[in-house]
């Protein structure tokens, strides 16, 4: 039986997935269909697993489907659903097109110690209560970070250039997007992963998936026991090597006529390549000839320690550098610089994330909410949540503020680190509390009217009360404040703001703003 159709189906499905992921993450118009978004993130292994742990509901069983699929057919997930995997296939395909050599890949030995060490370490760190390692290694989240941090700004620039060019001819088809700057240190990690993955896939196919990716290693372990496996018919095979040179996983050993199925990503290239139909996709549970397999048991070794030391050094380096970046906030405003620093004790986590603890335990930092946020207030963090929360999004009120009527981030989160809120619930969800520093306020320093904070406040938690002469000065009421950050964003005092939001460690329910019907009658005659 010829299995060529398997490869073509795989290519088709994977390209559809890649395109959808790309559009979902780049989308700056807010038009990407929410249902497709839910569908394609539902089956992502780590996000789905975290949702399951979080909610124990149908929303989180995507990873069980993946496990079942792998037990039946091997790691087809890696070739059709995983966006980072598909990206690597595109790179390998380009390599093939660019190269004159016919034999691009050949068998390579597995790096078992390394891959199982990383898997076990990720599981241990996760069991110890932290998901940083999973976040940093999760292929879906890495793809999300690469697209949102690196590709989206470039796409936005191109869009803005075209929008501007069209607008100058009075055509308003495209709308410009204002992507406010992120901390440059949040670009380092996605860039490093992009370079690593591209380099590895250009020269060694799926080396990343078979050496570093914990999902790949885990599914690879399962696929040792898969129902269907790829095998070489030792009788008809004449060792022409075409299968091996088409194998991105470098797992076909021609000499021994063996396939290391734990590294096979189920791309089915080999099936199409074999001229003698000797390479086959077969039922292995009830084979004619049972072949013995040794399951390699792997112990952790010194590379684990080395990895920990290196990650700590990396994060520490970033911590130091981020201080330099935060000092560069440009002064836009008041004539007299403000002197008192804002005392922020906690970062602000997005509405629906329940508490900082819940959020940091469940967010894989895939940046989907960062991309979807229409106000661009969600930004990847550097050290706001501590070094273990690197890249998990926080509310950056210097960039923007949270729209009162908006619940988009609560609807898109694939891990349910941010849980759905209705608009009415959102309007009373207090994610932080307002603080006012009178000595920084320009009404106090410059004796001039301002009220920018009060103007933007959706609940009037910031009121203007009489000050000197006809001047008014802000007064805050934290019981009705929801911590949206509109006041902090609007405040013109620099370098330190006169009004700011300090995050709630556990989100609270704010009181509803009081409403009183205006008793005043409209004038019946013109008063002039």
């Amino acid at each position, binding site marked *: 039986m010829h299995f060529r159709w398997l490869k073509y189906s795989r290519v088709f499905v994977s390209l559809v997935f890649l395109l959808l992921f790309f559009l979902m993450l780049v989308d700056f118009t807010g038009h990407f269909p929410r249902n497709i978004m839910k569908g394609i993130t539902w089956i992502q292994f780590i996000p789905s697993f975290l949702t399951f742990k979080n909610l124990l509901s149908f929303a989180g069983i995507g990873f069980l489907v993946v496990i079942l699929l792998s037990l039946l057919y091997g790691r087809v997930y890696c070739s059709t659903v995983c966006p980072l995997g598909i990206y690597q296939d595109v790179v390998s395909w380009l390599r093939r097109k660019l190269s004159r050599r016919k034999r691009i890949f050949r068998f390579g030995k597995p790096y078992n110690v390394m891959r199982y060490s990383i898997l076990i370490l990720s599981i241990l760190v996760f069991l110890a209560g932290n998901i940083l390692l999973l976040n940093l290694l999760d292929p879906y989240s890495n793809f999300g970070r690469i697209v949102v941090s690196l590709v989206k700004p470039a796409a936005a620039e191109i869009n803005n250039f075209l929008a501007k060019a069209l607008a100058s001819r009075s055509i308003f088809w495209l709308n410009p997007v204002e992507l406010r700057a992120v901390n440059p240190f949040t670009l380092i990690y996605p860039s490093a992963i992009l370079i690593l993955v591209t380099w590895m896939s250009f020269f060694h196919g799926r080396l990343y998936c078979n050496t570093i990716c914990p999902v790949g290693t885990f599914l690879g372990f399962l696929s040792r026991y898969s129902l269907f496996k790829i095998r070489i018919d030792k009788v008809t095979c004449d060792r022409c090597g075409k299968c091996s040179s088409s194998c991105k996983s470098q797992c076909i050993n021609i000499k021994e006529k063996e396939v290391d199925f734990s590294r096979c990503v189920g791309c089915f290239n080999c099936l199409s390549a074999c001229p003698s139909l000797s390479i086959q996709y077969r039922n292995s549970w009830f084979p004619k000839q049972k072949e013995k397999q040794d399951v390699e048991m792997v112990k952790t070794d010194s590379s684990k320690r080395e990895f920990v030391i290196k990650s700590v050094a990396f994060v520490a380096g970033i911590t130091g550098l981020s201080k330099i970046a935060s000092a560069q906030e440009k002064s*836009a405003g008041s004539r007299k610089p403000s002197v008192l620093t804002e005392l922020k004790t906690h970062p602000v986590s997005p509405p629906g994330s329940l508490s900082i603890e819940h959020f940091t335990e469940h967010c894989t930092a895939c940046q989907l909410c960062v991309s979807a946020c229409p106000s661009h207030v969600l930004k990847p963090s550097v050290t706001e949540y501590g070094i273990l929360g690197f890249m998990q999004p926080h509310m950056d009120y210097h960039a923007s503020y949270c729209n009162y009527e908006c619940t988009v981030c609560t609807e898109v989160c694939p891990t349910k680190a941010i849980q759905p809120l209705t608009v009415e619930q959102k309007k009373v969800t207090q994610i932080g509390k307002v603080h006012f520093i009178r000595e920084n306020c320009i009404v106090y320093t410059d004796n001039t*009217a301002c009220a*920018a904070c009060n103007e933007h406040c959706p609940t009037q938690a910031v009121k203007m009360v009489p000050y000197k002469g006809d001047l008014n000065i802000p007064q805050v009421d934290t019981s009705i404040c929801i911590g949206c950050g509109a006041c902090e964003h609007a405040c013109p005092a620099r370098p330190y703001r006169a009004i700011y939001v300090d995050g709630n460690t556990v989100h609270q329910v704010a009181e509803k703003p009081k409403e009183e019907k*205006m008793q005043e009658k409209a*004038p019946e005659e*013109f008063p002039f």
Partner: protein
Amino acid sequence: MKRRDFITRSIAAGAFTAFGTGNLLAQGSRMNLPYDLVAVMGGEPDAMFDKAIQSLGGMETFVKKGQTVVVKPNIGWDSTPEKAADTNPLLVKQIVKHCLAAGAKKVYVFDYTCDDWKKCYTNSGIEKAVKEAGGEIVPANSERYYHPVKIPNGKNLKDVKEHELILSSDVFINVPVLKHHSGPQLTIAMKNLMGTIWDRSYWHAHNLHQCIADFVTYRKPTLNVVDAYRVMKKNGPRGISVNDTVLMKSLLVSADIVAVDAAAAKLYGIEPSKVNYIRYAAEMGVGRMDLDALNINRIKI
């Protein structure tokens, strides 16, 4: 910073050469109008505007065939029409219709919003209204649309970055909504112009009232139409709910931006001289706030 300035200035210079500077000077208070101010009371927003513009000789007085028009309502907040945080969409629609009927080549509508601009445009009902009337609603959320200009007669405000449609359009119709404002007490026509410039926080930091008055010395709108159909009387400029509003069913129209602000303040219940920017602007000779001396057409429906 210098290189960036150079680039933006060159673009602005380009914009000027392309669109011509004559537009800026020709329009405004020099027109011979039958009334200094028209005040209407008791009708729906569109019907009141029909009466007002008719008494000034129709839209043809202001818009000539083939001209481009920019209409600047207040669309600052992600809010719905009954809360009156944004200009009434029916009024905007009617104005766009009149401009097109008078032969305008294009009618543009924009505001540099405070909340997310797409939500403001949609939920205020203005985007739909403009499209139905045949006008073009355009974005103003990017610094790329703004070009540096000098304010030679400004006291505190010497330069701003102004939206290119204000620079390039032949006719500029300012359509504010009258409402309470926690900062400068009231926001009406002059304050509405803050939605045509980029760096608002500079104004807040450098005596807001003076900056508002200073900016009017740069370019006065051809016509000001104040929406006082539903008036927010507390918790402005954003408002919390419909309970903050009073149904006044009024409309004020004038080519004199100071006069229209003075009349609107009076209608709201505040003496114009108590609102600093109105007084400053009158003192600087931008317009008149002595309502008793003005020729006012009062229409009741």
